[in-house]
């Protein structure tokens, strides 16, 4: 499975939303499913999926799907664009 698909899976799992809802524009606190509790679950899911340990600042900055990709790239997770 490529990283893009893994990322989508992590979001659908953590937020309980459909895969087609996981677009780059999807932003924290703009849908009821992505609230602060779900954000916590999401961070855990991303850390497990990509085997990384995110810093506090990165967790707080991870306010959209696009942002998540940018941050994960800092941890050598590439999305092939």
């Amino acid at each position, binding site marked *: 499975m490529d990283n893009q698909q893994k990322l989508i899976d992590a979001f659908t799992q*953590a937020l*309980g939303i459909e895969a087609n809802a996981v677009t780059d524009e999807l932003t*924290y606190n703009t849908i009821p499913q992505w*609230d*602060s*509790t*779900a*954000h*916590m*679950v999401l*961070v*855990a899911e991303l850390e497990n999926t990509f085997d990384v340990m995110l*810093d*506090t600042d990165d*967790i*707080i*900055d991870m306010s959209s799907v696009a942002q998540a990709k940018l941050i994960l790239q800092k941890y050598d997770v590439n999305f092939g664009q």
Partner: protein
Amino acid sequence: MTRDTAALAIPFISEHRNSDALALREAQGSMSYRQLAVAVDARARQFKSGLNTERPVVLLVIDNTISSVVDYLAALALDYVTLLVNPDSSDEVRQAYVDAFNPHAEVSQGEMSVRHADKIKTDPRVSVLLSTSGSTGAGKCVALSAQNLVANCQSILAYLPLLPSDNTLATLPLSYSYGLSVLNTHLQAGATVCFTRHSVFDKDFWAQVKALPVHSLSGVPSFYEMLARLRFTRMDLPHLRYFTQAGGRLKPDLVEAFAKYADEQKKSFFVMYGQTEATARMAYLAPQKVAAKPGAIGQAIAGGEFKIVSDDNASNGELFYRGDNVMLGYAANASELAGFTPPEWLATGDIASCDDDGDYTLIGRMKRIVKLAGERVCLDTVEQLLVAVLADFKLTQPACVVGHDDHIICLYSGDIEQDRQPLVLNALAERMQIPKRNITLRDGQQLAYSTNGKIDYARLTAQVKEQL
């Protein structure tokens, strides 16, 4: 001076009437104690001119805002019977309260809308009504007296290291007994309560913590789970002196991690225990013991007392509490406000044991209630919803629900096709109004029954715990 122009005795802030110290702060502004007293006096006059009823029952939608605190203090000062409602509650829940308690008026952010002026007979002691259930429904209310609020406030101030110069960031709703206790204690101490719209995952939250600066934080287990996820224990927060946890059981490994952090950073971590039925607080564990006893709730607060009642001389049994903060009783509707017979001992519904140091540890619940994000969810209610949802899918074999920590485990004795399981789970989450991540659905389960033919929840819960 006539009675009308005399200064009102405002609970909690009377001593600070002439203080220019900050009482409340929100993004839009702040208010000193002096300004707050003036605002409460004015709000009380406004309420009185609009509502010409003796000891009216009012429904107050209390938000985490300065204006809501003014509403609350004005209602207390006027000796109203005030039902506090969460601003996030649904229209159905609010309507259910209106139907049940027939309030004379509804108040929200300083606006009062009067409904009627008929007489409602109320016990002279009853002051505040708090909901016993969270988002899942209106439910019956806990009736508290002004004396309950004052007593619990004083007991809490006897052990928390709260200073008049403190800022706290109120993250809990004021309609929740724990959140209300944070407000009451800080006002009584002359400290500052700061409100925020941000969660711990927002940059602005931490910017506020550093800039104000914040000296104390309070939260339910999910709050601490978020802090753990954020590597809170690696943050440099020199001004934070103490933090408190209540509202359900925090996993012992997290308790240990926070205790270690507190120890290293010369801060204090208070693990506490309480119920709305006891106004808020019943016990706390001395901070220096937290690392060694991460599962304990400690000892009763000043003025309170515990006893364990068991049928068979067992070392554990149901925990009972006695103190001036024990509620007047429950009220499900307006007629039940007429008179209360407060219990001397409050049956907590929790099973506890006590160690040689006199520290108590909770073992389980007598009744079937679990806490999700600090809010009570009755498993029996959830079970009824499960049966209804399954019936919609033409699944009619026996089913039941057990709880473990913050998880609802739905057990179905028949089989559910693999590809239909997500649909059932979605329907359950929606019907129960519980996040999907807190629900597990298991099919093909053998349900344990007791000898009298009833589902044996204790045995099922033990089995489920083993499987998790």
